[in-house]
């Protein structure tokens, strides 16, 4: 089988495949790792459960692309139903629908991971060569003025008038057409997702990508993973076709993403020896607030977020009591189906707001999960995945504060009125209405949120009782089983994790290579 992307119809006659490295998942983690290893001459195969959707199969229709690109067709939620889980189910993974925000891991996070969780060799000095290379490779640069739509312009002006510190968002794009369809897949190849960057490079160096291939079960011989059983998916029915094949490899790497890697390992029964498996799960819960403006904002065109407000990125306390912060504020980009789904309004009021769609725009706050109040990925009795998130007391305070700051921002931007994305239709006509926030339900289902930034579940650390992989990305107790994605992060990476995942994958690649030396 030649290097390249092979789909269901190409794999019909495959029964067994042997390679040096088998990577499960083709998103930021798996694709970057494949590129790094293939360039070093290793024979690599990447398995992807979802299909392959190159530009000629995209149409930028919101619902159509949600069905093609999103796991669970965008309908998966946390166990309380309040938080929509957004993840990729396609070659390129979530990078195909991400916003392309590309932040280096904040220094305070690297310090926290080293000092509190025992992560070694993932400090700035270790990661800097990877960050430098990646930033060149995928054209990361600060958003220029031309990529500020009216919403972003107004957002930047308001943050400056409020005295809130902000920055141009570092983003991975070239020759952007300003279509506003980053979340539907970029038909122009302008967004530097994995299908136009690391996967083609990996393939050029001999890698193979098997789409429509769901990793089922690993068999082990002692401390070594030996063979992987794979179901070939029937793309048209989105069910297993009944056909299977096996992959034998010297090394297996799980890179199925923050929602799926720990679940895959749980399905292999590794939870018995690794009690931390699935635990310490973060997801950057994101609150959203919408406002109605006098003039057109047309938030659905141009790039999603060109300006970010980092004034409140780190939590502030007064004498041990929470004061404010713990999130990044950004303008929100959202097409009409998803926007209406997250509005709390009904009937004529919903019609009144949606009829003003060009003047309707909002903000989003990406919360840095509280380390003491993280969630957990669990396996249901039927083997499926359940995402449990507890919304602890401090989490609720941060969520409420993030909503309050967004309301302040929207009114500073000139909104006539505002509503919070949640179960209750609280209407805010000015800052005088802020007292309503006292009654805001912030627990399960009270706020309607989305979470495209999962992390944890395979926490990195030295102690097998407290972590799942060592600082060499190797699963504790196994010689040739690695994890390379955001699930190794000990806590939330605070910001969009894509660039952090890629840099960590560079580190994982070094350790995989060591096993062959």
């Amino acid at each position, binding site marked *: 089988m030649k290097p390249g992307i092979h789909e269901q119809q190409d794999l019909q006659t495959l029964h067994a495949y042997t390679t040096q490295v088998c990577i499960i998942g083709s998103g930021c983690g798996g694709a970057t790792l494949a590129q790094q290893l293939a360039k070093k001459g290793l024979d690599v195969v990447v398995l992807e459960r979802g*299909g392959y959707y190159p530009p*000629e*199969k995209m*149409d*930028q*229709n*919101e*619902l*159509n692309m949600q*069905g093609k690109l999103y796991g*669970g*067709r965008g*309908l998966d939620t946390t*166990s*309380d*139903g*309040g938080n929509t889980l957004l993840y990729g189910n396609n070659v390129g993974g979530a990078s195909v629908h991400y916003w392309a925000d590309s932040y280096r891991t904040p220094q305070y996070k690297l310090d926290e991971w080293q000092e509190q969780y025992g992560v070694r060799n993932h400090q700035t000095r270790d990661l800097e060569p990877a960050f430098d290379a990646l930033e060149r490779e995928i054209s990361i640069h600060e958003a220029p003025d031309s990529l500020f739509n009216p919403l972003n312009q107004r957002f930047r002006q308001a943050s400056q008038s409020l005295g809130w510190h902000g920055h141009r968002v570092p983003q991975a794009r070239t020759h952007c*057409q300003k*279509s*506003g*369809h980053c979340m*539907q897949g970029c*038909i122009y190849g302008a967004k530097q997702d994995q299908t136009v960057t690391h996967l083609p490079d990996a393939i050029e160096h001999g890698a193979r990508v098997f789409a429509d291939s769901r990793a089922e079960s690993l068999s082990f011989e002692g401390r070594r993973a030996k063979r992987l059983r794979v179901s070939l998916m029937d*793309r*048209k*029915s*989105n069910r297993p076709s009944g056909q299977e094949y096996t992959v034998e490899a010297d090394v297996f790497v799980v890179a199925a993403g923050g929602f799926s890697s720990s679940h895959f390992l749980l399905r292999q029964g590794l939870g018995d020896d690794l009690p931390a498996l699935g635990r310490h799960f973060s997801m950057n819960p994101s609150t959203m607030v919408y406002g109605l403006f006098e003039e057109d904002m047309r938030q*659905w*065109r141009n790039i999603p977020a060109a300006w970010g407000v980092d004034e409140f990125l780190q939590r502030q306390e007064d004498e041990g009591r929470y004061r404010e912060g713990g999130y990044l504020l950004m303008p929100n980009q959202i*097409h*009409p*189906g*998803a926007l*209406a*789904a*997250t*509005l709390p309004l*009904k*009937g*004529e009021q*919903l*019609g009144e707001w*949606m*009829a003003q*769609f*060009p003047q309707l725009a909002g903000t989003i706050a990406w919360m840095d999960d509280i380390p003491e109040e993280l969630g957990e990925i*669990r*396996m*249901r009795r*039927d083997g*499926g995945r*359940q995402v*449990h998130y507890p919304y602890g007391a401090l989490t609720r305070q941060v969520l409420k504060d993030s909503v309050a700051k967004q309301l302040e921002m929207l009114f500073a931007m000139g909104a006539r009125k505002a509503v919070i994305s949640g*179960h*209750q239709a609280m209407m805010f006509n000015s800052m005088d209405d802020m007292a309503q926030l006292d009654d805001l*339900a912030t*627990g*399960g*289902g009270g706020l*309607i949120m989305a979470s495209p930034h999962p992390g944890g579940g395979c926490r990195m650390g030295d102690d097998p009782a407290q972590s799942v992989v060592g600082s060499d990305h190797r699963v504790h107790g196994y010689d040739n089983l690695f994890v390379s994605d955001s699930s190794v992060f000990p806590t939330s990476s605070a910001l969009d994790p894509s660039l952090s995942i890629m840099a960590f994958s560079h580190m994982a690649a070094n350790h995989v290579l060591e096993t062959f030396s």
Partner: protein
Amino acid sequence: MVRIELKRRKLLKGAVLVAGAALAGYQIGRLRSPGDPFPGVGPEPDTLVFTRREAALLEHIGRAILPSGAPWPSLRDAEVVQRLDEELLFTDDHTRSEFSLALRGVENLPLLYGYFDRFQHLALDDQRAVMERAEQTRSELIRAATNGVRMAINLVYFGHSATWSAIQYDGPFAQLPQHLSQQRTFYRSLQQEAQP
């Protein structure tokens, strides 16, 4: 490991069962297969996932929560039930069963608020009143059920091109034509096969 989820499902199922039992006597004559709940507004949707009763309930909920009258298209013009049926066909069994459970929860919600009837048998004003009451709930279960159904209906209604002129949305950039996935094509072929 699955204790919390089971508890939640158990509670919701329990509520559904209690409500169902209370209604049993009253409803016995009404449990026959329903007719078209909205005759004259377009053909009833043919569904592969939803039962006829669920499809009718979805239309009742949609009518209670979506805007109506000009310029808004009807649920059937926006293919709300049809599209949800299609989306759920391609999700896993768990998602389908959760959605079905949420629908049953909404169907029996009126009992909690003093109505002695199921949602789809209430007058439109009462249906709206039930949804308003549910909005004030502190119950995570009721939130989960009503949010799940409401969000799904809004997603597909406003994601449909029939609504776009009413909201001044210009659709996909450069007006690209639809490119149906293999799954969308497959759904259509299954529907045709299911035609009597």
